């Protein structure tokens, strides 16, 4: 009779591992998953945050437009700034000249047909969420290590969670009692999302962990040191249009993605949208006269799994429906993590609720679950409220995000330590609902949308703001009813 006993003990051990590793990593993972979910539509968020840029149907790029972009590249290079050209695609039908400002790629947009400058407000846009997703805004090395560790801990939590619930996977998959007792409803939500989205969660966590640029396990060899940098050429660039056409032929692709400029050469890469495998193959041309030098491809068998992992994780190949599926799956995984965090607190409130550590844990949970969405909405609000001509407005938007989060954290921790966590939850949820309801109104009043596609984009963002507001309002009302 020892075997059943041993199995039960093993499941109990896994319960402890699942709870504690899950809670501590979950605080970080909720941030990673929420921003990652938003990142599925990073370009669309940037477009929403630059409502002045008209989103016309994709036109073929013209040599004139490319020449205008090339002139901008030269002007930037004269100022010692490294820039590149982002070619238009179906998702982002404008030509952009981008530079890295320390946290994101920003720069002016041009009409791909006429080369006219499309004056849009300065913003980091969806790039902010993208960078936050894999660096936590703490630098590529520290952030990369933190997110890599969080990914490993999520895999540990997943495995231990599977062991705990293995016997009841089928009942868990079909049972949801949202109006049952509170722990039951949260547990149902946790198990339902956990079981249904398990394959997605496994794939996205594993691929996300292995494609980290700063690997936890093996340092990727750096390319050989470049020859001493010569004076950066700022003389006229060769015509770029024929180079793009030649790249398409050489790389056998329909679309090109970026044009990079080094002191010696011009590099045109395959579009990320052209294949499930994210290869970044390049054709290289001489900078002076534009003659073809060579192509760089990564098509060995050993490279393919990583290209597939990158492609699956970034999902740039995907059509609109598939992107929405990624978005909804990411949202479900965020709900899985959030419900796990709340469940952890509910289970321990009666026994450990008086302990300072518990109060701090609840404060952190509030600032993650409610504070981060509030800050994300404040970021979008800042985009509408900060004047277009405000100097350094992109940085100001980011500052609003972090100032709001700091306020939320201070309120959550102070109220939790003062034994008023429900008040903190309620206030933050009501704030979230108010911001969500107000944003569509502010958007409609403050910004004209130039094209039908801009209007459709605006409506989509408005709908999601209202969904967020409704969910927050329902949660706040249930909390008020419970505590009154």
């Amino acid at each position, binding site marked *: 009779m020892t075997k059943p006993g041993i199995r039960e003990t093993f499941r109990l051990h896994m319960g402890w591992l699942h709870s504690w590793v899950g809670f501590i990593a979950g605080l970080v993972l909720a941030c990673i998953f929420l921003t990652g979910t938003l990142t599925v539509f990073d370009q669309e968020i940037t477009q929403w945050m630059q409502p002045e840029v008209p989103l016309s149907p994709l036109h073929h790029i013209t040599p004139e437009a490319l020449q205008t972009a090339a002139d901008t590249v030269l002007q930037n290079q004269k100022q010692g700034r490294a820039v590149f050209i982002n070619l238009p695609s179906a998702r982002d039908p404008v030509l952009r000249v981008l530079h890295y400002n320390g946290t994101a790629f920003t720069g002016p947009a041009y009409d791909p047909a006429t080369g006219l400058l499309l004056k849009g407000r300065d913003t980091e846009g969806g790039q902010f969420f993208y960078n936050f997703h894999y660096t936590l805004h703490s630098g590529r090395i520290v952030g990369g290590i933190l997110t890599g560790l969080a*990914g490993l801990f999520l*895999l540990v939590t997943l*495995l231990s969670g599977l062991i705990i619930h293995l016997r009841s996977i089928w009942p868990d998959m079909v049972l949801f009692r949202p109006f049952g007792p509170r722990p039951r409803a949260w547990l149902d939500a946790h198990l339902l999302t956990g079981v249904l989205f398990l394959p997605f969660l496994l794939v996205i966590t594993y691929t996300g962990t292995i494609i980290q640029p700063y690997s936890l396990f093996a340092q990727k060899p750096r390319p050989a040191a470049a020859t001493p940098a010569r004076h950066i050429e700022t003389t006229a660039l060769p015509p770029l249009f024929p180079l793009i056409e030649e790249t398409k032929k050489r790389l056998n692709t329909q679309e090109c993605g970026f044009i990079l400029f080094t002191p010696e050469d011009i590099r045109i890469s395959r579009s990320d949208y052209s294949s499930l495998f994210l290869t970044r193959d390049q054709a290289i041309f001489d900078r002076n006269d534009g003659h073809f030098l060579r192509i760089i491809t990564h098509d060995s068998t050993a490279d393919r799994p990583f290209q597939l992992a990158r492609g699956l994780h970034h999902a740039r190949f995907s059509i609109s429906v598939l992107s929405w599926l990624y978005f909804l799956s990411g949202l479900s995984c965020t709900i899985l993590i959030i419900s796990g965090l709340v469940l952890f607190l509910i289970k321990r409130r009666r026994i450990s609720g008086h302990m300072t550590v518990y109060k701090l844990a609840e404060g952190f949970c509030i600032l993650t679950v409610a504070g981060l969405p509030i800050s994300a909405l404040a970021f979008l609000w800042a985009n509408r409220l900060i004047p277009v001509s405000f100097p350094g407005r992109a940085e100001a938007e980011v500052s609003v995000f972090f100032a709001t989060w700091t306020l939320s954290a201070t309120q959550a921790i102070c109220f939790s330590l003062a034994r008023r966590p429900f008040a903190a939850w309620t206030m933050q949820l009501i704030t979230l609902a108010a911001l969500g309801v107000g944003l569509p109104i502010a958007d409609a009043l403050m910004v004209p949308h130039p094209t039908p596609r801009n209007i459709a984009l605006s409506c989509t963002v408005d709908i999601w703001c209202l969904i967020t507001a409704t969910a927050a309002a329902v949660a706040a009302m249930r909390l008020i009813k419970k505590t009154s």
Partner: protein
Amino acid sequence: MPWHRVLWLLCAGCLAWSAALSWADLLTAASRLNPAQGAMAITAFATAFIPALIVIGYGARMHKWGLWFLVLLSISGIVIKNLAL
């Protein structure tokens, strides 16, 4: 939070890390991959096996030989790697 559990988890984590990395290193080195591909392979193997080994290692608390199994696994990886390469 009982600290002996945390200590056990740390031990299991370190041993899992060591075991997975040494075995991944051994397997990729034996495959004669170039350094860039080797680094990718090590990352892929280690990411897959470290969580599993942590779960096994922590679960091994219930068995008196559990932790020794992980110690043996990690030492064997290091020894074989050094003998083989």
